[in-house]
């Protein structure tokens, strides 16, 4: 078949919406060799083999490093399927960002060099057509996502006309709003500064994860975070904190390129109250970023006394902080000391000397000396109940006011 006829055939296949499988079949028929099309991570999107070749790739194939570190438009090498080695020719799909790979597989003993000259143009034409298909599919996914995001936004902003309407729309997205639900807000942080992992991929992984683990969940994307509305399984209602912690712990391996922090709102018995759970989750997330020093989920109903402080005026908080901590701050300022941070870590470690000294990278005796100095400066004993409460409150205020650097940057 001439190249012009081949291109005509591709155009006709695209017009008939045969998709990526249709395109790989056309190429396989033309060159009579196995054709595999994968996405950028090696997930097989389509594969076709002539009847004479027995090749059954798995759902995901391990792409050789020569493909992943490629520089040229055409890459060749050896690949193995179920222990059997084959020769391959690979065309990356998409420029400059790789969207996938088109692989043509041949027998190991076969000399493909001359053949590659023959089918190279055909494969290149198909890889371009596949790129168009992938972009088209992404567009459809984006449109669907936009509709879903708008529905989630309406739910969490109390912006709907009636419950009937919400239930009807919920059914479209596979949600049943008859039981109790709760809202989680997840903010992602890029682990590596050099590479920019694709957030779209992370959000679709998060969505898949929650829908699989808690059927009936819906995930929407807001400006900087993911909002997850999950039904609470009746069997888990007794210890839903444990259930949620367990659930979120399973998320880390799914989005390995990202760090995350999650805020969890209270359980909402009715869809009318869902917006409240969302706002609670947001408050938990924002406060968690200030007071939490690891990535475990922050529950609104576990925030405790912090909730008393966050809505006070900045001036009142600052006054209170200075009243309690002024002597320590002055000492730190004048002597380039770190008594404030010492106290912070001491309290964060539950007043455990060993844990606190490990966190501060100092000897326990040094910590003991510093605590004695703190008691001296404050003119009171750290064993006194009221002093302890005041210090804890002032340290929390310091975190809210940004005087103590949080580990997780917003």
């Amino acid at each position: 078949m001439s190249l012009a006829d081949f291109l005509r055939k591709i155009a006709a296949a695209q017009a008939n919406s045969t998709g990526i499988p249709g395109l790989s079949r056309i190429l396989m028929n033309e060159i009579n060799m196995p054709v595999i099309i994968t996405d950028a991570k090696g997930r097989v999107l389509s594969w076709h083999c002539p009847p004479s070749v027995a090749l059954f790739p798995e759902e995901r194939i391990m792409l050789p490093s020569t493909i992943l570190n490629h520089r040229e438009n055409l890459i060749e090498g050896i690949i193995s399927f179920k222990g059997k080695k084959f020769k391959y020719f690979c065309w990356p799909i998409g420029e400059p960002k790789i969207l996938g790979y088109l692989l043509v597989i041949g027998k190991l003993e076969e000399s493909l060099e001359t053949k590659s000259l023959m089918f190279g143009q055909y494969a290149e034409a198909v890889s371009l057509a596949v790129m168009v298909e992938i972009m088209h599919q992404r567009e459809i996914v984006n449109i669907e996502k936009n509709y879903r995001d708008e529905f989630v936004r309406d739910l969490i902003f109390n912006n709907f006309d009636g419950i009937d309407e919400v239930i009807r729309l919920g059914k479209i997205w596979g949600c049943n709003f008859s039981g109790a639900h709760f809202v989680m807000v997840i903010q992602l942080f890029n682990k590596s500064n050099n590479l920019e992992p694709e957030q779209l991929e992370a959000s679709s992984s998060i969505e898949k994860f929650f829908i699989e683990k808690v059927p009936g969940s819906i995930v929407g994307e807001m400006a900087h975070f993911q909002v997850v509305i999950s039904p609470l399984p009746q069997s888990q209602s007794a210890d839903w904190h444990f259930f949620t912690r367990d659930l979120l712990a399973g998320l880390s391996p799914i989005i390995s390129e990202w760090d995350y922090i999650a805020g969890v709102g209270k359980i909402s018995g009715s869809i009318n109250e869902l917006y409240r759970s969302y706002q609670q989750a947001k408050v938990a997330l924002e406060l968690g970023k200030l007071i939490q020093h690891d990535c475990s989920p922050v529950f609104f109903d576990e925030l405790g006394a912090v909730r008393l402080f966050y809505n006070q005026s900045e001036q009142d908080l600052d006054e209170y902080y200075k009243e309690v901590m002024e002597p320590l701050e002055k000492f730190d300022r004048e002597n380039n000391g770190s008594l404030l941070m010492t106290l912070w870590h001491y309290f964060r470690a539950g007043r455990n000397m060993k844990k606190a000294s490990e966190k501060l990278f100092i000897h326990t005796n040094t910590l003991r000396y510093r605590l004695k100095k703190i008691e001296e400066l404050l003119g009171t004993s750290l064993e006194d109940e009221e002093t302890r409460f005041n210090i804890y409150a002032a340290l929390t205020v310091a975190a809210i006011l940004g005087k103590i650097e949080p580990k997780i940057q917003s």
Partner: protein
Amino acid sequence: MYQWRFLVDPSLCIGCRNCEIACRNEFNIKGGERRRWIKPVDNEDNYRKHFLTMSCNHCENPECFRVCPEGTLRKRRDGVVIHDPRRCAGCGTCVRACPFGAIRYSLRTGKVDKCNFCADRLETNLNTACVEACPTGALRQLSVYENNPPSILRTVPGFGKIMLTRPSTRFLISGNLSRQDGGDVDT
């Protein structure tokens, strides 16, 4: 940011209160009640630093909205926070919750009242009454489809705490006010 928001330039504000009066006229507000007001900001030596025109900031996470026991507030798809007075019991919980004092209790109606971003005027492609009335261009509005201009700020001195509620109002300093007075640059 996909929402309607006010863009305030404190260096251009002369404190004339035109915005405040236009808002009162638009909504026929009587007595001492106000949906928009001018806040003078002084420095430590009691010298007038600048004026700030204040109203509801149609926050990203409205705190009023979380605490209202009647669910009278909602955030529309265009980001405008709307209060439904029919469901309001006038308990005042939202008044205490708003860190900007943007929701006020009305002695006349026994309910609370707040800026609705002139929702009716937006429907007819008109600017909000306060923006229309500003003679110096210190108060402007940005639509859902408009991007933030470069070097925009999220807060300026005297504005209030933005950490939790994330107000949508943005600031631009084009005049003499020192840029050091500004807060975080919004990226």
